[in-house]
């Protein structure tokens, strides 16, 4: 059990760090787009990388943010009924629907994007929407990693919920 707890704490830490990494990407995103606009109007020298680089950054912010948002339980819920349930009722609802919906969805997303990453790596796929032509697998690796850590954080939260459910603890 102690090893398990250590692993769970470790994954929780990674989820917390993921928020910190994504934070810096926000600053890079603002500066890079503003730089492109400036380069185009002030120096008449538009960058070739801005378009592709920007959407990569934007998606990286979302993907890396996923475990962080899940860890902080910040996904939108319509909690009109949920907030009226007793803590035990909430735990049961979360556990059942996580098993039924969260795990299949995120597992299959990991599979779908993981296979796509593998293909991109094997054939050296490049992005063709600008004349920059960067290789795509590092970008797809970030997406897959975000989903993998979302899945792991899901397992950790699931175990914690189960423990609380069976110990009969009443904290929310």
């Amino acid at each position, binding site marked *: 059990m102690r090893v398990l707890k250590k692993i769970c704490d470790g994954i929780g830490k990674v989820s917390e760090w993921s928020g910190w990494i994504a934070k810096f990407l926000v600053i890079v*995103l603002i500066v890079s787009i503003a730089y492109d606009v400036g380069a185009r109007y002030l120096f008449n020298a538009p960058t070739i990388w801005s378009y592709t680089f*920007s*959407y990569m950054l934007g998606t990286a912010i*979302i993907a890396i943010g996923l475990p962080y948002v899940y860890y902080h339980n910040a996904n*939108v819920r*319509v909690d009109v009924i949920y907030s009226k349930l007793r803590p035990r009722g909430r735990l049961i609802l979360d556990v059942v629907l996580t098993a039924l919906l969260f795990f299949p969805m995120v597992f299959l*997303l990991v599979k*779908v994007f993981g296979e796509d990453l593998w293909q991109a790596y094997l054939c050296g796929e490049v992005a063709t929407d600008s004349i920059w032509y960067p290789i795509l697998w590092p970008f797809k690796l970030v997406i897959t990693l975000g989903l993998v850590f979302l899945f792991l954080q899901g397992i950790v939260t699931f175990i914690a919920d189960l423990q609380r459910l069976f110990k009969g603890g009443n904290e929310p």
Partner: protein
Amino acid sequence: MTGVDPELVAFLMFGAAIVGILLGYPLVFILGGIAMFVGLVTLGPGVFTMFRLRIWGMMTNYTFLAVPLFVFMGLMVEKSGAAERLYGGLHLAFGGFRGGLAISTVLMGTILAACVGVIAASVIMIGLIAVPSMLQRGYSKELTCGSVCAGGTLGILIPPSLMLVIYGPMANLSVGKLFMGAFGPGLLLSALYMTYIAIRAWLKPHQAPPISVEERAVPRLKKLRLLLTGTIPPLFLMLSVLGAIFFGIAAPTEAAAIGALAATLLALAYRQFNWETLSYATLQTVRITSMALFIGWGAQMFVGVFLRLGGGDAITSLMLAAPFGSWGAFALIMLIIFILGMLIDWIGIVFIMVPLVAPLAPALGFDELWFGMMIVVNLQMSFMTPPMAYAIFYLKGIAKPEWQITTGHIIRGVIPFVVLIMVGLGLCIAFPQIILWLPHQMIKF
């Protein structure tokens, strides 16, 4: 799956999603989980490729990048202290009139709306400043709460607005045009709110008394200076962002990046910029962006399966068969969105409903831009109609015990403003030019 009508499956999946969402499990996993199951069972493993391509389409969409940028801009404005200065100037200028503080509140909401794109930021900012100020001077609790909720909600209508940034790509409309189209209805609602407050304060002076003479005894020059220093910086910020879009200098995403930088400069100028502010703004940006656009991924999966099963055609034929022709169909769509707005978060509504109903506009003979704006104005009510009403939640969330505000006060307070939004919708139907005039003046390039 033979023998089962695929359209029936599509509608069952919709019903299951509504039930799941109302139970309170996170929206995105309900949508994605149901789509996975139904898709796999009815369409087979080929559905995975569709999911990947649809989500990839969202990931590589340049317009959606405006979401993190506008969120950051709003958070920076919130932390810059611009709201306090703005209210400081406005309340001295208008406080002497009956209802003047409530009018200042709506005006502050209107001006801040042009700097932020999310209502959380504006309701909280306005509430914290204006509620104590109004209650101290004997304003009725209902009017206080109503004006804060209504004024704060303008943030998601008056551009830049996150709702429009998401609406555009989902309906294949230009976000820049949507921004310009939202000005008319936004200012119209703001004017309706202020007129209503003025009339109510004139009829029932004890609900909204003018501030005392001693308090107003500020030299006229100082009053003017406070008003100007309070209003000019946010207006300048607004012009830098919207002007760039209007004159075709920058795409909305680029304008948003400029706005994010400008808001940072504003915070610097007000000496509120430090590591803590930046850390807060960036982390909240990650949180909101990841949460909102991940719902988009889930909705893409859901809508993909729904359309593949023929749900879209079923909706079209259902709407075209509505009584009273295209206006009957229009009324039905508006009613559905109004009811969904009571129950579900707006992000879910826009991501799911827009791909399904926006294609109906040309079929029914409506202007797409006008039709979209009617949906967006309609969704203004969703923030104030319980049980799922963000403006009420946020105001309740920041209410201090000494204010003695209950949810009942807030709900009674917002009812007149919801009615005013319906009046606004009626005016936009009678005079479509309110929406369409400004986008037609835009410089095309």
